[in-house]
């Protein structure tokens, strides 16, 4: 007899020979009886229509929420999440950025730092610093010219493209223009790092670098840079820097003709009265000038 012959028998898969043998066996009658009786069994009633209606109710709510509510809401959440991430991201990014203050041409800007130190920006200058980290690190980056009145406290550093100035609490002026770098100390002690060399600058001294040539000069003790009083002062400064300052103070274009701009100039010009300023520059240098609407032309007296 083959394996699982009872199952085969019910399925009419037995060979004739096997069937004959099986029919002769004692159990055959009982199996026949079981097969017959079980054939008459029935499963409980199942109302398919009722079940279908029930199911429709269930899937309908599902369907509606699937199409109308869930998806748009999911999309909305997706967009909202992206926006939220961008907002928080940019908030932290912007917060970590340094604050920057700028003064325009022919303009001065005053600002007070978180520790009540003061900075006055001369025309066309820019400082930036981190307000968030100010408590830990008093550091500003300067491009241009500015007067600093530093409140006593931790080390205060000014970084420029030419050199670094470090102080504890003092008043000083830093001028960092193309090719010209001057630090004047009016009070306290200033430490200037230029070309990785540190120079101590006591009150009443100034440190100037013109085109790489270092020179030392004086500054008025307990004084102020002249530009705070609307004047620009120069000591043995090449004319080119004087005229550049003139351009910044009056927001005007300066042109020169047959003039040696390396000539040294010592003097002061007014930052408020252009005619007076022109005279202050032209008289001692014996240079003539022509004042136009948007520009000034300086030319040699001897030129026709």
């Amino acid at each position, binding site marked *: 007899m083959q*394996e*699982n*012959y*009872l*199952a*085969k028998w*019910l*399925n009419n898969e037995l060979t004739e020979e096997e069937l004959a043998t099986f029919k002769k066996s004692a*159990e055959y*009658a*009982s*199996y026949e*009886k*079981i*097969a017959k*009786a*079980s*054939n*008459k*069994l*029935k*499963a*409980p*009633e*199942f109302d*398919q229509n009722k*079940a*279908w209606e*029930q*199911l429709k109710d*269930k*899937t309908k709510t*599902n*369907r509606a929420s699937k199409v109308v509510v869930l998806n748009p809401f999911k999309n909305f959440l997706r967009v909202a999440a992206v926006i939220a991430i961008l907002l928080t991201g940019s908030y932290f990014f912007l917060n970590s950025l340094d604050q920057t203050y700028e003064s325009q041409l022919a303009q001065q800007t005053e600002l007070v730092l978180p520790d009540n130190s003061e900075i006055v920006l001369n025309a066309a200058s820019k400082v930036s610093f981190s307000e968030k980290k100010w408590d830990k690190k008093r550091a500003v980056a300067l491009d241009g010219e500015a007067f600093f009145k530093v409140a006593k406290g931790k080390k205060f550093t000014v970084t420029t493209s030419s050199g670094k100035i470090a102080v504890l609490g003092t008043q000083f002026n830093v001028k960092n223009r193309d090719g010209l770098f001057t630090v004047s100390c009016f009070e306290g002690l200033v430490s200037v790092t230029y070309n990785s060399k540190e120079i101590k600058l006591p009150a009443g001294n100034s440190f100037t670098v013109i085109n790489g040539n270092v020179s030392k000069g004086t500054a008025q003790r307990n004084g102020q840079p002249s530009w705070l009083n609307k004047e620009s002062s120069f000591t043995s400064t090449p004319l080119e820097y004087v005229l550049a300052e003139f351009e910044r103070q009056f927001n005007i274009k300066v042109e020169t003709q047959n003039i040696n701009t390396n000539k040294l100039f010592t003097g002061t010009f007014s930052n408020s009265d252009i005619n007076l300023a022109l005279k202050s520059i032209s008289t001692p240098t014996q240079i003539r000038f022509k004042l136009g609407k948007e520009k000034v032309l300086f030319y040699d007296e001897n030129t026709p």
Partner: protein
Amino acid sequence: MNNVCEEQQYSSIFSTHSKTVFNFIYYKFGNEEKAHDAVQEAFVKLWENCSKVTPDKAKSYLFTVANNLYLNVLKAEKVKLKYADRHTHTTTYESPEFVLEEKQFEDKLNNALNSLPENQRTTFLLNRIDGKKYAEIAEMEGVSVKAIEKRMHLALKYLREHIDGI
């Protein structure tokens, strides 16, 4: 897309398989109410996942879901099958003794079926009542045809041994 999200496709799957799912669960656990619930839940699940199930996979999906739903819940409960009344239109010409004897035999058969191991009972009844082929039952249960034949064989043997007087 060939999936069962299509209303017509879905309803035809329902009319083909819902009764079998019902019986399948009923034979396993002997609980009519739970069998009804199983049909609902299995088809709701099928609808929810309609985009992932292809029509030819729908059948085995339904049985797998239905089976999993009650696998743990009802295993412990005692099975008590009852069957629809078979004698509604009996105009027999048989002797009362014969009828009585037959009735007694049926009762014994019922008792033996109730105590039969679940997988053997399901196989046996799907074949006897629903006329399912072994191959079909094998697909529903997720086993080989040979395993179904074995279950069938053992079921018959068990029933014979447990029906007194034979």
